[in-house]
């Protein structure tokens, strides 16, 4: 037993001037129904969706933190500041054509995003957000030897990875897109960044029905951990996302035939923390603030927004959208 040196540490704490009291910070999301960025006023369970903004886009995605967003309109890519109010939209597409089928993956700090177009079979990084937005090189699936099935950016935005189907491989992309390196032979249909560790990604292999944690390096990737699920979830696995849960990290997956259910795993223990039936079909999970995920899908006017919230408990909340309900009412729906 080695002797330990015990040092008495002292800490002094005092409240300082500057307390604030206001309403909850709006949770901002892109509403595919109104094709605009919108805020959620209040905490889900006690909230409502703010009216649509005037700025209309084909698709869009809000960066973690909600301070800025990317959106596509008529083939052009825009950086939108203060998306809750759509106060300023700046075109950054630089002559490139962006289809409205693009999907997005953000770094946790919101500075980097990777756009994936399955239809165009390409990925492209956008870095330096929001102040110095820079488009990386557009990397095509053909260049990688197959069809790109998923893409993700690491927590701090230092690395992006893509999965390619035919070549059954995982590739690493430098932030500027100029370095493309095959780093693993793993086959994965879904890949999302870890919410707690840099350069780590969660992958899902539907054939082996297994999750894996992949640590991506410059030239290679290492499978840090993997586990197989059998009875915990139903096929198919449609989408997944990671999030912080106190000191832990959780993985939420949407599975089963529509509308299916959402299952939440503790990524440390692999325990199922919650299993909740879904009221609607969900095709994507988007981070919404720090304690909830937006259950995104094809929403119809008159239907609420649905949110998975885990504070104070795991629960699927509806958020009424009176603006679109009024439109539905006027259209006789």
């Amino acid at each position, binding site marked *: 037993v080695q002797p330990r040196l015990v*040092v008495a540490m*002292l*800490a002094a*704490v*005092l409240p300082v001037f500057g*307390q604030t009291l206001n309403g909850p910070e709006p949770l901002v999301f892109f509403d595919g129904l109104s094709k605009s960025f919108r805020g959620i006023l209040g*905490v889900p369970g006690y909230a409502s969706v703010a009216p649509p903004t005037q700025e209309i886009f084909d698709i869009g995605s809000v960066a973690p933190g909600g301070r800025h967003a990317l959106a596509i309109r008529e083939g052009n890519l825009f950086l939108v500041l203060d998306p809750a109010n759509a106060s300023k939209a700046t075109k950054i597409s630089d002559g490139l054509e962006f289809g409205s089928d693009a999907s997005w993956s953000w770094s946790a700090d919101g500075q980097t995003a990777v756009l994936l177009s399955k239809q165009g079979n390409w990925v492209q990084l956008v870095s330096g957000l929001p102040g110095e937005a820079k488009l990386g090189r557009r990397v095509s699936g053909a260049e990688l030897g197959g069809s790109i099935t998923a893409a993700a950016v690491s927590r701090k935005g230092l690395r992006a990875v893509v999965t390619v189907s035919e070549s059954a491989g995982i590739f690493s992309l430098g932030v500027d897109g100029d370095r493309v390196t095959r780093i693993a032979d793993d086959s994965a249909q879904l890949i999302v960044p870890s919410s707690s560790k840099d350069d780590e990604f969660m992958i899902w292999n539907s054939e082996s029905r297994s999750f894996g944690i992949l640590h991506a390096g410059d030239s290679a990737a290492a499978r840090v951990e993997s586990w197989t699920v059998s009875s915990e979830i139903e096929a198919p696995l449609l989408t997944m996302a990671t999030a912080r849960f106190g000191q832990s990290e959780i993985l939420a997956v949407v599975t089963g035939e529509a509308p299916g259910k959402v299952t939440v795993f503790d990524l440390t223990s692999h325990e199922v923390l919650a299993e909740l039936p879904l009221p609607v079909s969900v095709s994507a999970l988007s981070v919404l603030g720090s304690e909830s995920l937006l259950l995104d899908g094809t929403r119809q006017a008159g239907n609420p927004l649905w949110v998975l919230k885990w504070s*104070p408990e795991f629960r699927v909340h509806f958020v009424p959208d009176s603006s679109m309900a009024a439109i539905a009412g006027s259209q006789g729906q």
Partner: protein
Amino acid sequence: MRTSRFAQIAAAGVLLAAAASAQQFRIVVTQAGNAVSVQNGAQLTFNSAVGSSLTASVLATYTGTGTLTINNPPQLFGSTAFSVSSPAELPVTLNPGASIAFEIRYRPANASAANAQVILPFIETTSTNTSTQGTLQLSLLGTAPSFSVSYILQSDQNIVPIPPNGTLTFDPTVINTVGQAALNISNLGSGSGNVTGITLVSGDAFRLTRTPLLPTAVPSGQALQVVVLYQPLRTGTDSGQIQITFDSGPPVLVNLSGRGISSRFVYEILDSTIQGVVPGGTIELPSVAIGQTSTVVIQISNQGDSPGTINSINVTGTGFQAAIVPALPQIVAPNASVTLTIAFTPTRAGVLTGNLIVNSDRFVLSGRGLGTQLSFSYVAAGSTITVDNNTPVFFPATAITQSSNLLLKVKNTGTLDAVISNVGVQSEGPFALASPLQTPIILAPEAEFQVPLVFTPTTVGFVNGALRVDNNTVNLTGSGTRPPPMPSFSFTGVSAGNVTPGPVNVGLSLNSTYPVAIAGTLTVRSSSTLPADPAVQFSTGGQTVRFSIPANSRAAIFAAQGQQIGLQTGTVAGTVILSAVFSTESGGVDLTPASAPTLELTVAPARPVLLSLQVAATTSGVTITVGGFATTRTLTTMTVEFTPKPGVSMANNRFTIDLRATSSAWFRNVSSQAFGGQFSVGVPFSLQSSVAGQTGAATLQTVSVTISNEIGDSQAIQTTVIP
């Protein structure tokens, strides 16, 4: 007439009075009892029928003062139609005032005018014995009338004399029509004559018109005209006689002759065989399919003895037309003929009839349409009611939620089998087939089947619909009356009274089933002394949500949401009130009970509820952000308790912060009303570690927070600090 003749004498006397040189006489001429005084030398006029005599007596009275001697009888010079008688004794001497008389006789042998002169010589001796010779002179003029008869036919306007006992012959005249002739009675003589009578002696087919008031004088050279009409009533010869009488001379007989003629139309149907048809008879047209056309040719022959005129040809009756007709009016000579063509285009199956009318000859037209023909009827109150375009099927008044059934009888009254492929009501509505019909239905002529119809009204009042049987449309009419009251209902999922702020699920259920589908609207509203919380909404957005209750069930269905609808009760103390209105789903008839229950959920004034706690490290310590709500929209204090990591000594780790001022400022702010009772409190803390290079946050293990209001303290919320 004698007055007239006497006047002629008098006039002549006046005219010739100046011709006498001496006025020894006063001369009086007497004729037929009328006497007139004339001068010596006057002219006497005589008018008498040929062969008849007219005598005038002359009395000459000496008006001188001497004596007058007449030795010789009057001498006559001129026409032998005149003769004069001699005085009784000659010579004779007349003293003043004495007279001598003689007679003049006129008897014409012809109608020519006759002139003569009578001279009576005398010697007058005056008182001085002076003797003077003189004469009494009278001029004589004799005339005689002479009548002849002639006629003028309308057809040629020729004047045809009628000899004594001669005949006026009319043109052949169509029976029942009138021919006419002018009968002239002309005076060709030198003197006027009188017609005293014109009489139709015999002949029923003849008539006299324009006969003047008789007797009437016909001056010389003039004529009296009457009109003789001939109107035969039958074919064949007619005869008659007219007698004309005069004031002198024999009457004249005029024979009348005429012949009645007529046309006679004979009708024949020209087919492969010629078939005669008489007026009143039936002309059969060949049977033909509906919409197709058959024809028949009819020949009209004139078998009479006069031309016949076809003035009009009319065809009546649905489906019958005069296809080819001669130009009208059409004159058909005896033994000539014309043809006309009748077309038959049936619009329905079965026997159709019409009429053909040629002038006044009427025939029945008959044709048979080949095809199917459906007729519709139903029984109501024991009576069979036939349905046509103007008569819909009437269902009895029926209460909404109830149904009335009716059997509509469909009969094939056509001539061919009807194949019915489709039977159904037009569009969706209260009318329907009570049970499906197996089609196609083959319906022989005179066969029938029944269509079971049901009327299920959804609205109050009359409503119309239609049943289609292939291309036949039967109009349907019914009336709906108010439905029976809806059963009472209750809210489910949540009970009245206090509720925890947040989402709840609400349902609605009838206490018993109702026979028709119900549509309704559930409404939520807030009642509070505090500003209303806009989060009080249904999950579908807004404060109303529609629902339906299927027929014969109890639970309300909120569209995709199912039997319960999510409702946010909000975070402001007050009452959340739910109410519902109901109506029939079809027709929208209000069913809401007069005293419909409401559901009142109470969000009580309560101590704050904390929902989130975040500890963010700063360069000088940490900032604690706490989210939650207070239904009172008030906060008083916030208590923060820091738990240092093991081995870290913290002299003061619990702090209570007064929030009243900031809370009051926030909840009075209008922008806070968008969040109800929600709040987010951020409090920065200065935290220093005694260890160089160690952040204050690194010294913390956990942070626990409670927030209070006038009601009490919130639950404690705690989080582990991640540096």
